[in-house]
């Protein structure tokens, strides 16, 4: 990272260095121990997927069943449904929750009135800090058949109210828009930071050349933030597959299971409610594999299309 004058010092033996900096390692100790205990230990726990887990005897008293849990999950009736729902929700989010923060960031930086620009940013930033419980409750309230605004408008137009939360066809849009509402402002920050980094001289030169606002956005702003966009895209893809089961558990109902039940909510029900830990872990591993595949394909696609990629 930084060039160092003390390159000579680096060549000293490891023992000497350790004696000199033993207290640095001491500071590191609590953190490293925590990572071992609470981040790496559960990874070892993934072997549960290969056992018929016995709740009373623990892993040592359980029988090894090889790939049986995976086989049972894949051949079961819920497999296709949960995989499809996981991928569909990820695609919905990629189509809507990914591009809109970019547009929002460009809009915020384009506002000449700094007060309005600041106010917009403040407003969009707020929902990110509100808990999932509250956000889901606000959504349910907003769409309620009796007090929700949409249904009140429908009633005044003489239409019948719709109970949005129990209709399967509305679940994906509702979930996607909720995620957007909660995170758009926060996700926009990264792009706003990238936009600030664009050389102002480029814009000045473009104005001299007679380029209008739209042309400037298209030919300077967009190419300027493209590397950030690509990086964020690849990072987000994996998260979109994994994220959100907290919200889904709060929003879904048996009538919307056919579209809302994703791998993680299924794993939660099978494991925590039915006590089948082995199969729940197997489903979790499946989800991680899907996330990995999607991240790797996003990387390949973005390398082909934009010549930018993470790896």
């Amino acid at each position, binding site marked *: 990272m930084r060039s160092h004058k003390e390159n000579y010092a680096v060549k000293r033996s490891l023992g000497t260095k350790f004696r000199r900096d033993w207290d640095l390692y001491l500071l590191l100790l609590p953190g490293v121990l925590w990572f071992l205990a*609470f981040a790496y230990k559960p990874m070892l726990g993934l072997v549960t997927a290969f056992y018929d887990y016995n709740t009373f005897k623990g892993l040592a008293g359980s029988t090894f069943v090889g790939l049986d849990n995976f086989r049972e999950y894949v051949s079961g009736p819920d497999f296709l449904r949960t995989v499809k729902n996981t991928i569909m929700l990820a695609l919905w989010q990629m189509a809507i929750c990914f591009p809109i923060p970019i547009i929002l960031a460009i809009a915020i930086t384009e506002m000449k009135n700094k007060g309005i620009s600041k106010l917009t940013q403040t407003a969009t930033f707020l929902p990110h800090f509100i808990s999932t419980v509250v956000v889901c409750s606000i*959504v349910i309230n907003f769409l309620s058949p009796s007090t929700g605004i949409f249904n009140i408008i429908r009633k005044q137009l003489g239409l019948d109210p719709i109970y949005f939360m129990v209709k399967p066809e509305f679940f994906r849009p509702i979930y996607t828009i909720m995620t957007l509402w909660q995170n758009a402002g926060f996700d926009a*920050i990264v792009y706003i930071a990238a936009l600030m980094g664009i050389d102002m001289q480029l814009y000045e030169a473009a104005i001299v050349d007679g380029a209008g606002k739209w042309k400037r956005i298209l030919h300077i702003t967009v190419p300027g933030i493209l590397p950030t966009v690509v990086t964020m895209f690849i990072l987000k893809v994996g998260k979109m597959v994994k994220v959100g089961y907290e919200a889904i558990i709060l929003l879904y109902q048996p009538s919307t299971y056919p579209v809302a039940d994703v791998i993680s909510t299924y794993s939660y029900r099978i494991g925590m409610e039915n006590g089948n830990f082995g199969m729940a872990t197997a489903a979790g591993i499946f989800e991680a594999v899907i996330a990995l595949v999607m991240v790797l394909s996003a990387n390949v696609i973005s390398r082909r299309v934009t010549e930018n990629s993470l790896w």
Partner: protein
Amino acid sequence: MKKNKIRKTKEDYIVDIIVYAIAILVAVSILLPFMQVITISMSPASVVNRNGFHLIPHEFDFSGYSKIMSDDNFWHSYLNTIIRAVVGTFLSVSVTILTAYPLSKTKLPHRKGIMLFIVFTMYFSGGMIPTYLLIKNLGLLNNFLVYLLPCLVTGFALIITRNFFMTIPEALEESAKMDGASNFTVLLKIYLPLATPVVATIALWYCVQHWNSWMDNMLYVSDQHLYVLQYLLQTILNSGQTPDMEQAVGIVVHTETMKMAALVLSLIPIVCLYPFLQKYFIKGMIVGSVKG
């Protein structure tokens, strides 16, 4: 750009209109849901049960607030969350700083390896079930420590802290070392006072996470005395789906106004913190991501 008084083309006006339309749309979409919640929370039940717009209250009735505020369980969980947020934030910030400091030293051997060890956990984790089994085996079920330990450090906070430490000139450290200061003294006396912006950022980050978390309560704690606010709120908001049965077994029935009052009360600390969140967060995110 501002100084150039160049005649606007039609295209420029269209862009301006779109930009401000977005601003208005954003403002409306953020404000409406909150207005509805606040209005319901302070309207009499008769108005709420009548169909119609509930955006601006025209009749005030704070009985929802007084009812929820006289509920001991509500205050108990509020207190649990406050304790959790204060103690948890202190512990998390301490461990994060202690870990980030050595990792900001380029002279530290194996630094890259340790960083990889940490970054790896940001992408891979054991997942819900293995974590649950670990917590169970450690005997942390129904234990207050379950709110503090499993979420002690996040890789993201650690990395932005380390990146900030790396921007502090090393000359400061060297001169203190000449005077015989230990690494810990250097961290405490020199680095920490300079790092207030990033410490504020991660402290707010951890604090909000503690305030909003409820999943750990649902998964690991069944003892009602240990309930945290968000989980209790969830049970309050969910109640009333089967009011007849609940009344029969003597559970308090939460009316719509009570639910919304509880929701508003849970938001107050976040709203109070918000100006600071705004001030430090954007800065912290930018500082942290520059050297990612």
